[in-house]
């Protein structure tokens, strides 16, 4: 056996790093525009009334959610998989021509899918189901992309040298299986072209149009089983996969507890799927399902905090690194926001709290402290860790990283505090009755009162976007720097090179 570390091939990882950054900018920029549209409605016609159809809030909103979920986050998941996978399985993509081909095909089909999604959502072609807006032809393309991702995962596992699967691989496998199951069942639809022959025509109307396989309450039930667990398997599971790899690598510390990892992993797998019902409290779905949704949401604190505490305790005795390294800061604050968000969610899932919180901006605030503070921070930290190793260059500027950290942290804090106040204010005003038992406020009163909070939220979002642009610049300068560093950087333990 040769006595040198393996060389890994990061071609596909690099491609997905690029889309992580580009789609991140697009998704967050649209988000900032949306925030200002709510604060200042004239922004809806920012490109003139002729283009208002394409710039107004309702048309852009699915573009924002899908760009950050299926653009930024998913690219980040893919980029880290094509980096972490090789390293923890001790096998290079270059060793298999087939796997390399699958990886590249995965990327290019993903790009085709993204383009189709952008065009269709701008045109208003949507099924209306949140985070599952795509019509059936795009659904099929997404399934193909996902199968290629699965082939990459299991292909690499198939030729691995390290026989034991590291914790991160568990989470990547779960991401693949979870999203596959959820996406397939939620997108069951009947293309209208299948039924137009009785009228003597081959196709009537838009060929891409379809009708959901489920109606009304059932449709809602399947949608929120999907919607909630897309959060689970898109925003939680793969991000935990990342932190289990990148935090120990960056800090040089071993994972605090293997048993806690086991408990959190299997606990998360079992509990998460039950909790979807908390999106449907006081709706027309049966009471027992609503109660199950509530109860399991509270139980979900255990496995979520299990992972987060495991991460924080991994830093035991090494807390000076948090002060010294902006990269560690991102990950430690990320786990903290994860704890925060996974406590806030269960609180909102308690029925009496949900009665106030549901339909308000508090929910929007909850989503964003999770995605900005946890998902965003972790993906950026992962890319910062990967960049020197992938591009073989030192990070361009550490002080820029630190500046970015504080700007974005301030942005997140402004975002969720303003949305808390907005949500609870509106929830209380909706239910307020006067001394005669009549409603105390008309609906518009509960909208105009939110203006200052919407403005603050817009500023918070803008700060986060500015930080993200600094991140993009930093990575770009790292990538294009002249100085090549040949040796692997420090902190190769505990997993080896």
């Amino acid at each position: 056996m040769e006595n040198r570390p393996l060389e890994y091939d990061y071609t596909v990882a690099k491609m997905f790093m690029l889309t992580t950054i580009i789609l991140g900018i697009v998704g967050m920029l649209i988000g900032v525009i949306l925030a200002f549209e709510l604060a200042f409605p004239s922004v809806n016609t920012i490109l003139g009334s002729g283009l208002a159809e394409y710039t107004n809030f309702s048309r852009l909103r699915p573009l924002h959610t899908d760009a950050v979920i299926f653009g930024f986050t998913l690219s980040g998941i893919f980029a880290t998989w094509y980096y972490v996978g090789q390293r923890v399985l001790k096998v290079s993509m270059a060793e298999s021509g087939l796997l390399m081909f699958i990886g590249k095909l995965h990327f290019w089909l993903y790009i085709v899918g993204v383009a189709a999604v952008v065009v269709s959502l701008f045109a208003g072609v949507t099924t209306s189901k949140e985070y599952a807006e795509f019509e059936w032809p795009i659904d099929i393309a997404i399934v193909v992309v996902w199968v290629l991702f699965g082939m990459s995962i299991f292909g690499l596992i198939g030729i691995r040298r390290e026989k034991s699967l590291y914790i991160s691989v568990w989470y990547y496998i779960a991401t693949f299986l979870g999203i596959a199951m959820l996406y397939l069942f939620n997108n069951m639809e009947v293309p209208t072209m299948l039924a137009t022959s009785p009228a003597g025509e081959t196709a009537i109307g838009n060929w891409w149009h379809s009708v959901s396989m489920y109606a009304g309450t059932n449709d809602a039930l399947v949608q929120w089983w999907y919607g909630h667990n897309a959060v689970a398997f898109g925003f939680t599971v793969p991000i935990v996969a990342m932190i289990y790899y990148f935090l120990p690598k960056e800090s040089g510390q071993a994972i605090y507890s293997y048993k806690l990892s086991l408990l959190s992993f299997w606990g998360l797998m079992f509990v998460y799927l039950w909790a979807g019902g908390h999106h449907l409290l006081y709706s027309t779905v049966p009471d027992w399902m609503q109660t199950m949704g509530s109860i399991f949401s509270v139980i979900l604190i255990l496995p979520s905090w299990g992972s987060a505490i495991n991460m924080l305790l991994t830093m035991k005795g090494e807390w000076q690194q948090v002060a010294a390294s902006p990269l560690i800061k991102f990950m430690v604050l990320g786990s903290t926001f994860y704890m925060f968000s996974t406590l806030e969610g269960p609180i909102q899932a308690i029925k009496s709290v949900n009665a106030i919180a549901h339909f308000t901006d508090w929910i929007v605030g909850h989503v964003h402290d999770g995605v900005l503070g946890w998902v965003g921070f972790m993906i950026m930290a992962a890319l910062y860790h990967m960049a020197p190793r992938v591009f073989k260059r030192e990070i361009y500027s550490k002080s820029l990283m630190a500046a970015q950290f504080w700007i974005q942290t301030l942005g997140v804090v402004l975002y969720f505090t303003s949305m808390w106040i907005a949500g609870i204010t509106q929830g209380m005003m909706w239910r307020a009755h006067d001394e005669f038992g009549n409603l105390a406020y008309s609906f518009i009163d509960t909208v105009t009162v939110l203006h200052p909070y919407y403005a603050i939220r817009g500023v918070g979002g803008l700060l986060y976007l500015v930080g993200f642009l600094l991140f993009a610049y930093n990575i770009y300068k790292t990538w294009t720097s002249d100085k090549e560093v040949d040796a692997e950087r420090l902190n190769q333990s505990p997993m080896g090179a």
Partner: protein
Amino acid sequence: MFHWLEKHPFFFAVGVFVTIAFAGLIEILPNFAQASRPVIGTAPYSTLELAGRNVYIKNSCNACHSQLIRPFKSETDRYGHYSLSGEYAYDRPFLWGSKRTGPDLMRVGNYRTTDWHENHMKNPAAVVPGSIMPAYNWMFTNKADIDTAYAEQLTVAQFFSVPYNKPVPMKDGSTKVVKMGKSVAEAHALALEEAKKVAADMKDQDVKDAVARGEIPEIVALIAYLNSLK
């Protein structure tokens, strides 16, 4: 056991899948047998209403408006009777929404008129001072897609036995027949007939002229849909 699983990816994946699929089986499947039966008074959407519903979806109205009235006094005071499962029997997809930036629309047909919607869609802040809803002027010129709505009717009639051209029971004991055309031409004729009734209550001369010419602007279909929400 866990150590063994970590060395056997296939069985590991099977284990994960069983663990995550379990909840869906127990929680979701039982409800399918009963939840989709319509309550008395719920009728399928007409061609024009369905075209309007597709305009609603195309513009993601559900991003800001819910169609779900929760059983609280504050909600029933504001929006009317709380929602019943069977009222959604013909909703594919469901449009409950998840955020009320604007008010609930489940029963908006009970308390808003064609005239109100027309003015409001042109300039929301003129009708409701302080409104942050944008104007939807393009709906007055874009044409509603009657063909696709008709294709959707054919699909739900064939695959989900939605009762078109059949009597459905109403609350007052009478029955109602929602007609579906036998051909594209007939579907257009039915939709136009309905559109003329809506346009008669509207002020916009261009819309009136278009309907007189046999065209149906999106706004007419949308208002027909909103008026049907009761």
